[in-house]
């Protein structure tokens, strides 16, 4: 027997590749039959149910909490107040440096409630109904405090402070300054000024609310969190120090998650409260959030106001860049923030060759629900502003919006393209994508329809809009140093375990925490190709469980990275298993690796079929017949490999705020055709095309599904989904009666196409995708602007419900800057 440890031997392809095909999903079998296990499906013996008592006020001092009447009820196991949480836990670590970092944040309100819906107390009882009844008996005395709801106002002097210890509502402030924008503004033939743009607050509201069962086992010390949190090790980063437990005793598990979209990342505050209740009562604590709680008490997407935008433009349509002030409304606690204050800069110039860029960015706290990284997080707000800029330059200076974009888009031959702030766009072809999107809707036909609608005076107007956007994926966590230079983070990675089991079965455990992104299917495709078997033969373990040990610090499904990090990890682990297989086969069959072929789970000597070993036979040698192997072979193979994919990053420069912040740049170009009814302001989408580019697709059908979903979220946000507060700080959209989630009749039959430009930087040429970059928000606003052509009205808000559109169409247009845009030309 030969005894060489084979490393990364790549046998010739012996069966058609699975990657690149629309393999039907493995997940569907159980989900279609109602056999999935979601967080609320988990029940434990002796568990109690939790109900939270929440602040009815936007800002109030908590004078006294009396839980005695609740505790007096038979079947109430325990209560918890904010003050108890303060005594039992350390305050959460803050990502923000000073001053924002000095904010005191616990799992429940301590001394003050800072937004309507903030939990102030909790009850654990034997049934959901009893917990709710008992919570209604908790008496809380409040003393109302002045509140502040608008980020721009909150950032000024003399406003009520959300956190008095911070001394300001500006939790973080930084200026991104590249090129020389003031020079460009002086040199430009035209300067377009936009006094204010507002990106509204909304949420992609996963259909499954937050839910968990937490069991603190005082015997072993293990705190088992069975929940739908989507980034458990991020949660552990906050929970372990707060609770004073070891991270390896915080066990997180989940199977099926009913959507998350970034909004289940910061649920660690609730998980902490459940852990405390479980320890206090000596029972598992179960909590399933009601929808009304989710809307007011989980998290919202970031609201952002842009002010004093100035855009230098040359006579030939070259846009030199822009300058803007951004006020990001992060709600009452920073939590995931101020990461939004750097993440937007992954896409600083958008899809364009802009050279002179300045953004003066503030993360501002207000007395509203805290934000979480909602799909397209922080980039979509910024990219929306960039697209509004391009559209307003076109409409004010008389350029064709298609030609103006093509004049300024980064060109295919310029990739990999380094932006002024050091980000490297890997690949793309925005010009071809725009052409394809226009072709899919047959744009000339709609231009003709637009002209005839205007000529007929039909009371209807048609608009054609473009949304160009980026879906940057695989973040360099080193960018956190740009908002806080003391954060010891950089790079990115993911872990996976591939194992050949006792009888030759192949299984994979992932560190990712899927929420509908088809990881079981796409992972099986990649692993099957490595091992020369069918995806049906690969078991990808559903969900995630930290007890499987397949995780790193940033494991999870977020920020469009699975196709790079998760797949990279699974690929590497499978290759190591394959190396083991060939090592054993070469030894047992007394052949060189070059003589061996791998076909359908059997390794044989090429041309000598009798000299062959099945996976099961190899597994038997390794697990049960080691004595028959040369010791050096037996010691070299395990058939059980954990691989960590490491994204090739270095540490960005915090001083200049530049560096490679993300590895891949998937792109989407959308074209939207709307019809606006002058009399009612009703906006109807007549046609819609979404062309995406995400490198080499692993499973085209899965990619298309993500494009559809992101498109629906954007259309919904543009026209009907908004989270608004009244002057008292009361949320006006507290249920699905008032928060108008899109339904089947509201969405168009999206036309899609995919133009692959393989990434030179990733293991398979694929790019992360799925967040989508908010293209429909850009495209719908662009189409509305186009429908308003000639009227002088300006679309300045990302949310345009019927009433706002009616006002744009029917109210007199103001003069000067009050109109929403002005031009100064040389």
């Amino acid at each position, binding site marked *: 027997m030969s005894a060489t440890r084979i490393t990364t031997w790549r046998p010739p392809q012996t069966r058609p590749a699975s990657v690149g095909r*629309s393999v*039907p*999903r493995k*997940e*569907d*079998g*159980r*989900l*279609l*039959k*109602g*056999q*999935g*296990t*979601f967080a*609320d*499906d988990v029940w434990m013996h002796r568990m109690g149910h939790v109900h939270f008592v929440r602040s009815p006020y936007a800002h109030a001092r908590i004078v006294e909490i009396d839980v005695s009447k609740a505790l007096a009820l038979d079947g109430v196991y325990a209560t918890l107040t904010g003050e108890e949480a303060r005594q039992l836990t350390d305050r959460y670590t803050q990502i923000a440096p000073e001053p924002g970092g000095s904010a005191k944040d616990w799992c429940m309100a301590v001394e003050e409630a800072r937004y309507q819906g903030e939990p102030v107390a909790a009850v654990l009882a034997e049934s*959901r*109904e009893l917990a709710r009844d008992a919570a209604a008996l908790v008496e809380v005395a409040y003393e109302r405090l002045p509140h502040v709801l608008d980020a721009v106002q909150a950032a000024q002097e003399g406003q009520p402070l959300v956190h008095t210890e911070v001394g300001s509502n500006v939790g973080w402030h930084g200026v991104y300054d590249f090129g020389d924008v003031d020079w460009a503004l002086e040199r430009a033939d035209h300067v377009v000024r936009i006094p204010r743009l507002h990106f509204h607050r909304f949420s*992609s*509201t*996963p*259909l*499954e*609310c937050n839910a968990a069962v937490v069991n603190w086992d005082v015997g072993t010390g293990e705190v088992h969190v069975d929940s739908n949190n989507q980034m458990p090790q991020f949660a552990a980063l906050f929970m372990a120090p707060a609770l004073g437990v070891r991270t390896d005793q915080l066990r997180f598990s989940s199977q*099926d*998650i*009913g*959507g998350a*979209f970034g909004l289940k990342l910061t649920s660690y505050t609730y998980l902490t409260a459940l852990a405390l209740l479980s320890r206090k009562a000596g029972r598992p604590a179960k909590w*399933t959030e*009601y*929808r*009304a709680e989710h809307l007011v008490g989980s998290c919202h997407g970031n609201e952002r106001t842009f002010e004093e935008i100035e855009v230098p433009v040359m006579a030939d349509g070259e846009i030199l860049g822009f300058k803007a002030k951004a006020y990001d409304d992060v709600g009452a606690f920073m939590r995931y923030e101020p990461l939004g204050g750097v993440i937007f800069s992954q896409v600083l110039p958008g899809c364009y060759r802009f050279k002179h860029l300045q953004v003066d960015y503030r993360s501002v706290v207000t007395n509203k629900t805290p934000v979480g990284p909602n799909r397209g997080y922080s980039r979509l707000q910024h990219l929306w502003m960039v697209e509004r800029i391009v559209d307003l330059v076109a409409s004010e200076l008389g350029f064709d919006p298609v030609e103006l974009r093509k004049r300024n888009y980064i060109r295919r031959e310029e990739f990999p393209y380094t932006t002024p702030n050091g980000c490297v766009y890997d690949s793309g072809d925005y010009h071809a994508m725009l052409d394809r999107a226009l072709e899919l809707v047959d744009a000339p036909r709609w231009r003709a329809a637009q002209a005839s609608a205007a000529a007929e005076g039909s009371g209807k107007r048609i608009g054609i809009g473009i949304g160009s956007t980026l879906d940057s994926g695989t973040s360099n966590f080193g960018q956190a140093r740009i908002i806080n230079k003391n954060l010891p983070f950089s790079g990115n990675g993911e872990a996976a375990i591939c194992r050949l089991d006792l009888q030759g079965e192949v299984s994979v455990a992932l560190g990712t925490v899927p*929420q*509908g*992104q*088809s990881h079981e299917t796409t992972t099986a495709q990649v692993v099957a190709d490595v091992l020369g078997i069918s995806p049906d033969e690969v078991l990808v373990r559903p969900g995630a469980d930290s007890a499987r040990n397949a995780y790193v610090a940033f494991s999870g499904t977020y920020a469009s990275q699975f196709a790079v990090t998760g797949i990279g990890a699974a690929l590497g682990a499978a290759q190591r298993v394959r190396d083991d297989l060939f090592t054993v086969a070469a030894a047992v069959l007394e052949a060189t690796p070059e003589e061996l072929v791998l076909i359908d789970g059997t390794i044989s000597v090429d041309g000598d079929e009798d000299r062959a070993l099945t996976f099961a036979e190899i597994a038997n040698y390794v697990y049960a017949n080691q004595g028959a192997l040369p010791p050096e072979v037996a010691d070299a193979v395990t058939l059980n490999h954990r691989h960590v994919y490491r994204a090739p990053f270095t540490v960005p420069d915090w001083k200049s705020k530049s560096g490679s912040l993300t590895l891949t740049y998937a792109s989407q170009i959308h074209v939207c055709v709307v019809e606006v009814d002058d009399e009612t302001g009703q906006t109807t989408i007549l046609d819609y095309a979404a062309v995406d580019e995400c490198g080499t697709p692993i499973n085209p*059908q*899965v990619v*298309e*599904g*993500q494009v*559809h*979903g*992101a*498109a*629906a*979220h954007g259309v919904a946000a543009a026209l009907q989904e908004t989270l608004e507060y009244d002057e008292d700080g009361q949320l006006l959209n507290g*249920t*699905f*009666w008032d928060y108008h*989630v*899109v*339904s*089947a*009749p509201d*969405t168009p*039959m*999206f036309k899609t196409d995919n133009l692959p430009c393989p990434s030179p930087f990733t293991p398979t040429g694929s790019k992360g995708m799925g967040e989508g970059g908010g293209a429909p928000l850009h495209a719908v606003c662009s189409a509305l602007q186009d429908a308003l052509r000639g009227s002088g009205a300006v679309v300045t808000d990302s949310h345009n419900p019927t009433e706002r559109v009616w006002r744009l169409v029917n109210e007199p247009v103001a003069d000067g800057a009050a109109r929403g845009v002005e031009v100064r030309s040389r």
Partner: protein
Amino acid sequence: MPDSAHPISVTVNGERHEHVVLGRQLLVHYLREVLGLKGTHIGCDSGNCGACTVICDGKAIKSCMQLAVQADGREVETVESLSEPLGPPNALQASFNRHHALQCGYCTPGMLMSATALLTEQEAPGEDEVRRGLKGNICRCTGYVNIVRAVQDAAGTLPEQSA
């Protein structure tokens, strides 16, 4: 009388069940927690999202909007009735798989039950009828495109180029 006890007799997926339930117990909680039929989900508590849709005496209803006592004497079908637990999917389920009409799968049982009721009521619904028929079911993942295609395919009304 939220905590009063009521005997009910209800036929669920062809099997007759007799239980004493609290007056305040929702039908969806009865199905999930008493009968263990956890395929029926809860997404909004207010009758908007349809994740809890079941078929009651032939009509699609939202089981979070009904009390368990209201199901007394009725016949209820849940997603678990569509195919055998260990058997192949039925035609509609297979069509959902073929068209990638589900991602996270949370809305899927309700969506399937609404579509089942729709296909019973209408022989060959076109795209608009399918969209209207599913108006009471929210999906946050798919943008509805592939759900509409899957239901149309099951109904035999899917235009050829999108099959």
